[in-house]
């Protein structure tokens, strides 16, 4: 059931991200919607249950994207590890965790920018990078925590239903 939930959520998020978001001008600089999901797994789910799923998800995204193979796998894996490490020191209900998605978005962008920078100089790169990253972090800061809360709520509901039936 848990894996079915993961698959359904990720499928919806990936499809939404690749087909609907590009057509909405407001979301031109929207962040990767799978980051809140990875953060949710890192915050609330055990490593053994999530790690394989995260690697598969990263591989799937790598195949959909034009970036170098392994970029998303790397990003998601390290994001998951970082979140897991953070919750060792910070309580899950701590207010700092409101910004965990924004931090994840920043981390993903740093990895991506480092990978793109290897392709050589680009005159407009810095200006566009700064603008894109700032917008993505702002979006993540405003909406990321809601996504995590929704994932957690739905998952708990589903688990309780399956226990009853």
């Amino acid at each position, binding site marked *: 059931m848990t894996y079915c939930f993961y698959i359904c959520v990720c499928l919806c998020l990936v499809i939404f991200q690749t087909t609907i978001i590009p057509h909405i001008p407001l979301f031109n600089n929207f962040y990767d919607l799978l980051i809140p999901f990875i953060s949710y797994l890192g915050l609330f789910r055990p490593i053994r249950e999530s790690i394989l799923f995260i690697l598969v998800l990263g591989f799937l995204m790598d195949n*959909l994207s*034009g970036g170098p193979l392994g970029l998303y796998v790397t990003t998601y894996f390290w994001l998951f590890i970082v979140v897991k490490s953070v919750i060792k020191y910070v309580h899950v209900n701590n207010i700092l965790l409101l910004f965990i998605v924004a931090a994840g978005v920043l981390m993903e962008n740093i990895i991506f920018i480092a990978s793109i920078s290897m392709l050589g100089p680009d*005159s*407009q790169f810095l200006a566009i990078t700064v603008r*894109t990253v700032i917008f993505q972090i702002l979006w993540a800061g405003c909406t990321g925590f809601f996504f995590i809360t929704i994932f957690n709520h739905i998952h708990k509901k589903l688990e309780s239903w399956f226990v009853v039936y």
Partner: protein
Amino acid sequence: MIVGAVALIVVNIIILSVNSSRYSSYESGRSTIFFIAPFQKTVTKSVQFLKNIWGHYFFLVSVARENDNLKKAINRAIDKNNKYREVEISNFRLRNLLNFRKTMTNQVLVAEVIGQDPSPWFKTIIIDKGKSDGVEKGLPVVVPEGIAGQVIDISYNYSKVLLIIDRNSAVDALVQRTRDRGLIKGESDGKCLSRYVLRKHDVKIGDIVVSSGLDGVFPKGLRVGYVTEIVKSNSGIFQEVTVMPYVDFEKLEEVLVVLDSPKHNFVSEQ
């Protein structure tokens, strides 16, 4: 008795006939009206009030239902109208594509864009044609406005296309007016940069850049974009030429995959 009755009838007829010849008012009539009329007025007003209440409130239940039905009908009509408009626009677009297809001597395949890259840092699209339709890795993808990209990955029914604005993309091109060669590379801001254009070459803003066909991927003569900026640094043997692609990559919906690329020549519409 009978005589009396007949006489009464006659008298009555005479009085009626005399009265009917002229209208006369009497005090008793005025008094009657004076007393009765206010009641009549009140009752009439009350009836009208009740009638109004019925007409404007209770009867409105059916009007509200009718209103709901009309709203539904309007929504259906708007939806239908929107669909017709969408069909009209796609008809125009497909006609354009068909006209462009006729101008090409290459064998082409029309494909629909079904997805875009999940990351804003990379510029790829997913199209609904794959190995089963004859698409192969490396085939060029074009639209009536110009070159769109190149197939970089294929599955049985779908393919991934690297757009020319991606930083990994490179197209061998030449300036149409002067025939000066350069290598078109994607830039982060949706523009392209023509690299390795010699300083001595006379490139001007507004010049059209077309594919040279020398990269073995894109057919010769396809439009890529036009020159928007030229930077000649003090040192170096090359100048940097910024090229704005003709294709609006934000609005790509249908594309053509050139199946038999560089084997045949391209015949320009012009």
